[in-house]
């Protein structure tokens, strides 16, 4: 019966790979490993009934996970929330990156709406290493505020006295800038497309390593991985 069990293992792995991308993004390949791993044990303990149970479980959950994923996407689409809020993933090849720094293999930005604007977190993979930028609060009232971390402390590398500001000329656009001693260090925009699916970020200025200019195109991650689904 060994060929039957190993055949079941292979079939299980193949079906497990058909689970939705969203499921596999969270669970990795755990399902496709675990099923074949326990198939011999199930066979030993419960015989054919056990193998039937193993596949029944898979067969029930496959459409369920697709349905759950679809519901999540529908929720995102019909959400009348803020156009910026959510997680955005960069289209690496469609973006213009700072030539002074290595191009990331992956880059994401997340906007969380707050009472005064947003909390923005950027993270990604550079040179194979996970990297994350310091979370940043964005107040959209146009007032100049010291550039400080979330705990109100100065940020290493940011010139003393630096201030940042942000305004919202229209619901789809944020205009940001940073200056120190009256001199502009950087300015840019975040602009969400009319259909709400694309976010374009531009930033230009002079950093610690000299002038920089970036234009990054992001697409909305649907469903949002940070929002519990169903």
């Amino acid at each position, binding site marked *: 019966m060994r060929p039957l069990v190993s055949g079941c293992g292979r079939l299980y792995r193949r079906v497990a790979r058909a689970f939705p991308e969203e499921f596999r993004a969270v669970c990795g390949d755990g399902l496709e490993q675990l099923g074949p791993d326990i198939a011999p044990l199930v066979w030993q303990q419960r015989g054919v009934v056990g193998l039937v149970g193993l596949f029944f*479980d898979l067969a029930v959950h496959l459409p369920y*996970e697709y349905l759950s994923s679809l519901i999540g996407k529908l929720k995102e689409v019909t959400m009348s929330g803020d156009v910026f809020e959510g997680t955005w993933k960069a289209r690496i090849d469609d973006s213009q990156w700072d030539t002074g720094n290595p191009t990331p293999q992956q880059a994401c930005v997340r906007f969380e709406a707050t009472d005064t604007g947003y909390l923005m977190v950027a993270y990604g993979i550079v040179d194979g290493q996970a990297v994350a930028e310091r979370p940043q609060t964005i107040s959209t009232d146009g007032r100049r505020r010291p550039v400080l971390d979330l705990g109100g402390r100065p940020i290493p590398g940011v010139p003393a006295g630096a201030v940042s500001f942000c305004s919202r000329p229209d619901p789809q656009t944020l205009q940001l800038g940073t200056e120190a001693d009256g001199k502009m260090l950087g300015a840019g925009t975040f602009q969400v497309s009319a259909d709400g699916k694309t976010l374009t970020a531009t930033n230009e200025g002079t950093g610690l390593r000299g002038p920089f200019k970036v234009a990054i195109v992001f697409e909305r991650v649907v469903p949002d991985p940070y929002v519990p689904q169903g």
Partner: protein
Amino acid sequence: MAKKSPDAFLPLKSNWFHILLCLVEVEQHGYGIMQNVLERSGGKVRLWPATLYGSLKRLIQAGLIAETGDRPAPEFDDARRRYYKLTPLGRRVLDLESERLKDLVRILDLRRRQEARP
């Protein structure tokens, strides 16, 4: 997005309760959780793989558990495996569910004692 309060998860789904219980003392991978639940329940509760991973996914999304980057010693580690741990919210929810179940048992015991009185 507003976070759910721990009370909002009660009553906890049976599978969720078993999984959270497994993670109280030690971080576990999927196979470990499955075996632990089976042993703890005396073979009565078997979490089949798709049920288990479906529940793990929802627990992660609800913020009750998280994948941990900590790995066991290399001699005990299997690089393919992902390990999961309870989050503070998950621990709080488990505590509240345990209290809820204890209360139910207390009520049941009280009723039985009342019925047993002549």
